[in-house]
């Protein structure tokens, strides 16, 4: 690997779930909660709130653990400490497994923007007290991003990331200038998602130009060409990879190319393997960054993957559009042939 690969750790995100049937769920003295080990090594237990227990998502077995931890910590009182410790663990894990940025997203904390802004301000402040890593402020709402940037701004390498600007809200690049932030620009269109590589290239190029126009340096721009699930359409892998190649060719070595790499494996088994292979293919095409979970996919393991192994080649066939409907891949998984 010639250039540094920038990991934008994606796990400080309120949509993240653990499963009730998973090994992290436990009942202590009749109280349901999520087990964890605090950074100091002591056992922790994040109690599941009444509100969460009443939700159908919980009933169906899904626990939004990051949202729960933020709610618990922000709620104050006796139980708050578990929330603080839980989040500290998540942040430390992301840092120790190689994150260069921590992506912070509170979209699912509440539907009310005022609550989202409050949570973003609080969470960015708390994360900054735990780590010197810069923060990638991630929201679908620009006012929430601005709230986060206002408290995420540091100096030097502490410059935050704005996640993200796209044609739908191109003016977000100005916010990046105002707060001295780097910026992720995506290939989303003004009126819809791109349907092929050409639209990705066109949309992303217009955003890169918009960023350059307001004075953002090439090396402060991260292009996200958008990664879609390969389970839905076998051509989705090549759409992204072809776009990466052309964006690299068009804008040269200084621009960064990233993407939500784990989106690619939604809806299929052995996600870690599929993510690993996709990150490698993206890097070969010219990407030098990923919005990934480094706990699941640490870079050392990603780049050490044996490209001649059978699991690697089977996953690669899927991503290059050579395994229609992932049939061979899923068959291999059922036979246990995808295990490392």
């Amino acid at each position, binding site marked *: 690997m010639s250039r540094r690969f920038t990991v934008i750790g994606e796990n400080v995100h309120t949509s993240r779930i653990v499963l009730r049937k998973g090994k992290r769920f436990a009942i202590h003295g009749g109280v349901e909660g999520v087990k964890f080990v605090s950074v100091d090594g002591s056992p922790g237990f994040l109690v599941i709130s009444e509100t969460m227990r009443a939700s159908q*998502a919980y009933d169906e077995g899904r626990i939004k653990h990051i949202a729960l931890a933020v709610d618990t910590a922000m709620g104050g009182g006796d139980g708050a400490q578990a929330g603080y410790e839980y989040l500290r663990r998540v942040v430390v894990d992301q840092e120790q497994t190689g994150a260069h940025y921590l992506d912070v997203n509170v979209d*699912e904390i509440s539907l009310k923007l005022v609550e989202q802004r409050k949570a973003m301000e609080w969470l960015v402040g708390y994360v900054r007290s735990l780590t010197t890593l810069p923060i990638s402020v991630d929201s679908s709402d620009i006012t929430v991003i601005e709230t986060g940037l206002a408290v995420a701004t540091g100096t030097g390498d502490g410059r935050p990331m704005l996640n993200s600007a796209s044609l739908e809200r191109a003016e977000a690049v100005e916010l990046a200038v105002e707060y001295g932030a780097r910026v992720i620009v995506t290939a989303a269109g003004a009126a819809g998602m791109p349907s092929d590589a050409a639209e990705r290239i066109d949309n992303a190029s217009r955003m890169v130009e918009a960023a350059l126009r307001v004075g953002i340096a090439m090396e402060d721009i991260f292009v996200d060409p958008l990664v879609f699930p390969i389970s839905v359409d076998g051509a989705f892998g090549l759409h992204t990879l072809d776009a990466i190649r052309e964006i690299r060719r068009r804008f040269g070595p200084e621009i960064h190319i990233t993407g939500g790499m784990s989106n690619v494996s939604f809806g299929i088994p052995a996600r870690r393997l599929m993510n690993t292979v996709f990150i490698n293919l993206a890097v070969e095409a010219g990407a030098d960054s990923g919005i990934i979970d480094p706990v699941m996919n640490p870079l050392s393991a990603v780049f050490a993957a044996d490209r001649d192994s059978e699991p690697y080649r089977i996953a690669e066939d899927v991503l290059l559009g050579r395994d229609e409907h992932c049939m061979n891949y899923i068959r291999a998984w059922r036979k246990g042939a995808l295990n490392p």
Partner: protein
Amino acid sequence: MAQLSDIANEFIRDEIEEFLERPEEIERNLALFSRVSPAMQDIAAALIDGDDVTVDRLTRKALDGGVGALEIMDDGLIAGMGIVGIKFREGYVFVPEVLVSARAMKAGMAHIEPILAASGVEPIGTVIMGTVQGDLHDIGKNLCIMMLRGGGFTVIDLGVNTSPAEFVAAVEEHSAHLIGMSALLTTTMPNMAKTVEAFKDAGIRESVRFMVGGAPVTPEFGKDVGADGYGKDALACVELAKKLAVEVN
């Protein structure tokens, strides 16, 4: 109570034995498949297996042999998809396999639909689908559309960034009674409520049923905005559409 041995098709027997766990679902499928003819069991088996060529051939053969179109749809195609839905919910099969079964369903429905239309049988329903205003995400919505079409619904796809007025206009233009709204962002979810309000303002709220879905959407949120149901994935969407279609037909 029906027994496994009452079912002629070995593939169907294995599916029920291997993948069904909930007693009420075992009982329902045993009763269903022991009632339907071996030819319909074969169609259901091919559909579960994702074999569109065989579903196409067997559907044609059954029609030529005098089996009614409705019987093939209910006892072959929909019965098979019911098993696929359970396997998906329980994590035995994955998104691509569900799509392959949906493609097989479509192959069968291609023979069934013209016959139903010609004999004056209404399609099971028309669904207006769209991602709500301000939201450009459509992968989940498109999965729902594929599954709804596979399930026999006529679907009008309004695409992404659909305003409340566009939903109202589409319902009036197509005389539809079912509306599916999708959102992937918490910031656009409130536009589901605005769409329901627009139908109230237009005086046609009572004649339609709203379905909502999308990653951050919850059943509780659906109730809050006045929707009639929530589906957590594309198969749940089809189940919900069938249930709501009965209310408005």
